[in-house]
C-alpha cells in the first residue's frame, strides 16, 4: 500500500479503506471462484484415493509402474525438444526473414491445430506401417518379404506424431514474441557488433523465453493428458494406466492414485516453467517501431522455403490429403442433412466457449497484474490445472459435482415447493460450457498471460499517476495492447473445443451431436475411413479462424 501522502484525495478516507482491506476484494473472489471450479473435479478424482483399499495399486507397482514412468518421461522429453525446435525455428524464420512463400506459410503453419491428434496418429500409422502403401510399395520394388523401415509404432513414432500436432502452440506464441521484439533485438545486437546468428541466440531467444515457456507448458500438459494418440500407438503412459485402473479394473482409488502422480508431474512442469522466467523482465520500453524483415535471397531463401514447406506438408498436407481420399469414398454413403446441425453445434460451442474462456483468462491475468500477492498467484495457478487431467477423467470429475448440485436443488424444490423437476444443469449446455471452461482455461490463460508480460510496469505507474487504476486501467490501457494475445487465445480455445471429445460425449443434451461426436461414433468401432468425413469437416471449419487470427494477431500492439 502506498503511504497516505501519495494517495489521491478520493483514496484517503480512513473508514472506507479499512473496509476495503477487511473484505475480500472482487479480484480475489473472482480468481478463487475460478480456481474452485477447477478444483472441484480435481478434488473429486483425487479424494477417491481413499474410497476403497485393495491391491490394484500394488498390482501396478509390481507390473507396469516403472514402464509407465519411463515411457511418460521419454514422451515428455521427446515432445518438448521436438516442438521447441520446430516451433521456434519456424517462428524465427517467419518473423525475422522474408523468403519465397513466407506470406502464406505464415498462417498455413498454424493449420495443423485443426487436426485432432489421434486422427494424425491413425493416418501416420496407416501410411507408414508394414501394411501401409509405402512399405508395401518398397517390398514390391525390391521383391523382398521384409524391408528395413523405421518402426512407426514405437516411442519415436509417438513423439514424431505428437510433435507434428502440437508444435503450433509453441509456433504461435514464439511468433508473437519474435514479431513484436525479435527484429529490434537483432538490430540492437548488430549495432553492438554481433552477427545475426549470435544476436538470435543471445538476445532474441532469451527475450522470447516466457512465450516459448508458455507454449511449451501447454504442449506438455496436452501430452500428459492425451489418451487418443497413445492408445492408437498402444503406448503405455499414466493416462492409459488411469483408464485401465478405472474402467478396466474398476478401482477408483488406484485410478486416483495414478492421477495424483500425473498432477504431481504437471506441478513440476509448471514450476520449472515459472522458475525459468521468474527473475527476468521481458517488457520493452519505448515505442515499438517494427523493423523490416531481412530478405533472404537465392539459395538461402529457397532453403528456408523448403524447410517450412516440408513441415507444413508432413504436418498438414499429407494427413489432409489422406483424409480427403477416405472422405471422398464415403461421402455418398454418409453425408446427409444432419451435417449442417453437427457443424452449427460445433461452431456454436466453440465460439461460446472461446468467449467464455477468454473473458475468464482476462480476469485471471488482470487479477495477477493488479494484485500480485500469494493468494492470487496460487489461485491463478490452480485455475489452469484443468488442462492436465485426461479427458474422460475430467469429464467424470465434472459430472459428479454437477449432478450432486442438481440433486440438491431437486430435493430442495421437492421439499419446499412440492415441484418435481428434472435435472437443471447436467445434460444442458450450461454443463458443457462449464466443462469446456474448466478444461481450456489454461490454454486461454497461457496465450493472454504471455502477451501481458510484454506490457511494462512503468505503464501501470504512468496510468496511475493520471488517476486511472483498477478496471478503467484494464479497459483503456491493457485491452488494446492485449488484442493479439486475446485473439490467439480465442482461436486456440475454439479449435480445441471443436476437437474435444470426452466432455462433449458425457455432458451433451440429447440430440446435440457435434462433429467430434461423429468422429467418435466411427472410430470407436474401428471405422477410421468413415471418420475421415467429419474430420475433414472439422479441418475446413478451423480454416477461417486460423486465417483471420494470423492476419490480426501479428500486429500485436
Amino acid at each position: 500500500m502506498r503511504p497516505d501522502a501519495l494517495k489521491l484525495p478520493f483514496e484517503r478516507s480512513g473508514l472506507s479503506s479499512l473496509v476495503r482491506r477487511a473484505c475480500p476484494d472482487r479480484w480475489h473472489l473472482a480468481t478463487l471462484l475460478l480456481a474452485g471450479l477447477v478444483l472441484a473435479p480435481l478434488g473429486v478424482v483425487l479424494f477417491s484415493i481413499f474410497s476403497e483399499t485393495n491391491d490394484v495399486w500394488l498390482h501396478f507397482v509390481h507390473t507396469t509402474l516403472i514402464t509407465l514412468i519411463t515411457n511418460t518421461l521419454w514422451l515428455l522429453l521427446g515432445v518438448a525438444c521436438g516442438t521447441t525446435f520446430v516451433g521456434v525455428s519456424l517462428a524465427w524464420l517467419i518473423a525475422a526473414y522474408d523468403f519465397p512463400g513466407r506470406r502464406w506459410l505464415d498462417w498455413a503453419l498454424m493449420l495443423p491445430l485443426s487436426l485432432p491428434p489421434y486422427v494424425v496418429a491413425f493416418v501416420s500409422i496407416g501410411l507408414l506401417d508394414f501394411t501401409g502403401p509405402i512399405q508395401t510399395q518398397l517390398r514390391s520394388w525390391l521383391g523382398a518379404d521384409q524391408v528395413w523401415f523405421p518402426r512407426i509404432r514405437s516411442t519415436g513414432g509417438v513423439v514424431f506424431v505428437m510433435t507434428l500436432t502440437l508444435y503450433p502452440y509453441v509456433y504461435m506464441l514464439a511468433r508473437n514474441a519474435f514479431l513484436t521484439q525479435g527484429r529490434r533485438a537483432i538490430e540492437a545486437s548488430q549495432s553492438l557488433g554481433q552477427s545475426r546468428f549470435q544476436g538470435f541466440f543471445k538476445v532474441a531467444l532469451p527475450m522470447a523465453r516466457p512465450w516459448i515457456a508458455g507454449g511449451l507448458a501447454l504442449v506438455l500438459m496436452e501430452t500428459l493428458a492425451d489418451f487418443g494418440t497413445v492408445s492408437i500407438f498402444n503406448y503405455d503412459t499414466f493416462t492409459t494406466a488411469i483408464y485401465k485402473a478405472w474402467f478396466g479394473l474398476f478401482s477408483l482409488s488406484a485410478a486416483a492414485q495414478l492421477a495424483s502422480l500425473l498432477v504431481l508431474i504437471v506441478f513440476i512442469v509448471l514450476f520449472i516453467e515459472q522458475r525459468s522466467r521468474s527473475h527476468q523482465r521481458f517488457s520493452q520500453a519505448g515505442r515499438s517501431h517494427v523493423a523490416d524483415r531481412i530478405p533472404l535471397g537465392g539459395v538461402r531463401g529457397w532453403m528456408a522455403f523448403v524447410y517450412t514447406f516440408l513441415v507444413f506438408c508432413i504436418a498438414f498436407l499429407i494427413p489432409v490429403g489422406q483424409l480427403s481420399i477416405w472422405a471422398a469414398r464415403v461421402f455418398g454413403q454418409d453425408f446427409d442433412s444432419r451435417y449442417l446441425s453437427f457443424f452449427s453445434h460445433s461452431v456454436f460451442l466453440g465460439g461460446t466457449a472461446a468467449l467464455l474462456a477468454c473473458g475468464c483468462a482476462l480476469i485471471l491475468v488482470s487479477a495477477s497484474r493488479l494484485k500480485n500477492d500469494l493468494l492470487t498467484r496460487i489461485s491463478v495457478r490452480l485455475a489452469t490445472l484443468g488442462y492436465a487431467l485426461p479427458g474422460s477423467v475430467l469429464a467424470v470429475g465434472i459430472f459428479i459435482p454437477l449432478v450432486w448440485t442438481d440433486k440438491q436443488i431437486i430435493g430442495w424444490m421437492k421439499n419446499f415447493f412440492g415441484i418435481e423437476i428434472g435435472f437443471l444443469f447436467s445434460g444442458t449446455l450450461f454443463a458443457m460450457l462449464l466443462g469446456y471452461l474448466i478444461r481450456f482455461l489454461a490454454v486461454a490463460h497461457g496465450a493472454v498471460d504471455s502477451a501481458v508480460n510484454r506490457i511494462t510496469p512503468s505503464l501501470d505507474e504512468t496510468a496511475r499517476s493520471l488517476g486511472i487504476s483498477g478496471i478503467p486501467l484494464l479497459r483503456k490501457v491493457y485491452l488494446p495492447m492485449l488484442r493479439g494475445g486475446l485473439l490467439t487465445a480465442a482461436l486456440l480455445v475454439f479449435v480445441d473445443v471443436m476437437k474435444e471429445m470426452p466432455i462433449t460425449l458425457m455432458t451433451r443434451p440429447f440430440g446435440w451431436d457435434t462433429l467430434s461426436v461423429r468422429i467418435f461414433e466411427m472410430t470407436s468401432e474401428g471405422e477410421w475411413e468413415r471418420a475421415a468425413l467429419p474430420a475433414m469437416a472439422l479441418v475446413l471449419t478451423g480454416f477461417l479462424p486460423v486465417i483471420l487470427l494470423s492476419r490480426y494477431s501479428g500486429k500485436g500492439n
Partner: protein
Amino acid sequence: MYHLQHRLLTRHFSFTKLFLQFVSFFSLVGLFGLFTIASPVFAKEEIIVYSARNEQLIKPLFDAYTKETGTQIKFITDKEGPLLERLKAEGEQTPADLLITVDAGNLWRAAQDGLLKPITSKVLQENIPAHLRDPENRWFGLSVRARTIVYNTKKVRPSDLSTYEDLGNPKWKGRLCLRTSKSVYNKSLVAMMIHEHGEAKTEQMVKSWVNNLATDVFADDVQVMQAVAAGQCDVGIVNTYYFGRLMAKQPGLPLALFWPDQKNSGVHVNISGAGVTRYAKHEPAAIQFLEWLSSEKAQNLFADSNMEYPVNPKIPPDPRVAAWGSFKQNLINVSKAGELQGEAVKLMDRAGYR
C-alpha cells in the same frame, strides 16, 4: 508519455461495448442453457436410452420401432466406462430407462453396481438362450459375436489349427498377431478362459502367445487382419464382424476364419445386450422395447446391420454371415466375462501381454 495521455483522453473505446456484449451474450446463453431441462419427469410416451453401441447401429432400430409403435426414443451414446459412471452419479434421478452395451462384461458390471433392475418376461426368456442372459434377469443379450481365429489362406492350412491354446505352440513363433490386451473383447476372452481352465493354465497360455508375437500388439482388429493379409504374420484372433466388414470392402484378401475348440468346449462368444435401469421412469415401455428387440424383425435389423449373429436361435443369420459356416459355441454363461475381468486384466499384465 504524451502518446499515452493522448490515447486515454481522446480515443473512443469499443472494448467496453465488446465487453458488455460479451456479458449479455453469455447471460443469454446461460439462461438458455439453464432452461433446456434435460428431461421432464412426467413425459409423453417415450423411452430414454444410454448406449455404448454406436449411433449408426442403433438408430435404424429406434426409427423402425417408433414407426411401428409411435414411442419416441431419445438416446445418448458414449464409451462404456463414462456411461456407467454417469448412471452411478445420477442415481435415482437418472432419466435413462435402458442401458445398451457391446460386451457382456460391461453389463455384468452395471448389474453388480446396482444399476440394472431384474425383470420377468417370458418372451425374453423364450427368445434368448440361458447362457446369453443374466441368470438373475437383469440384462439380456441381443446379438452374438464370436472371437475366433483368422488365418492367411496362402500360408496356413485349416489342418494346422486346432485350439486357442495351440496358438502358443512354438510352431507359430513369429507368426501370431494379436490385438492389445486393453481391448474389452480380449479381456472377456481371457476371463472366460480363466473360468474354464483356471488362472495358472491361462497365464501359461497367454505367456506362450506373447512369445509367438510377430510384432507389437495392434490397437484394433482391422490392423490385425491387415497384418495377416500382408504377410507380417500368419494367424490372429479377431471378432467375426470385423472380418465380415473387411472382406465386404476388399473381397480379394487371402483371409479366412477358423473355428477353434470344436472338439472341446467351443468358440468363445460375446454379446451386445441391454438391461432396464433400476430407476427407469418408463419401465413397461422399456420392457416392451426389449421384447421387441428379441423378436424376429428387430433381430434381423440388429444383427445384420453389423454382420453379427442373432441371439434368438430360431432366426437364421445374414447369408454373408452364414457363409462362414456353423460352429459349436462355448455355453458358459457370458456373465463370467465380467466376473473375472479384473483377474483377466491383471493376468495379462503379469504375462507381459500389452
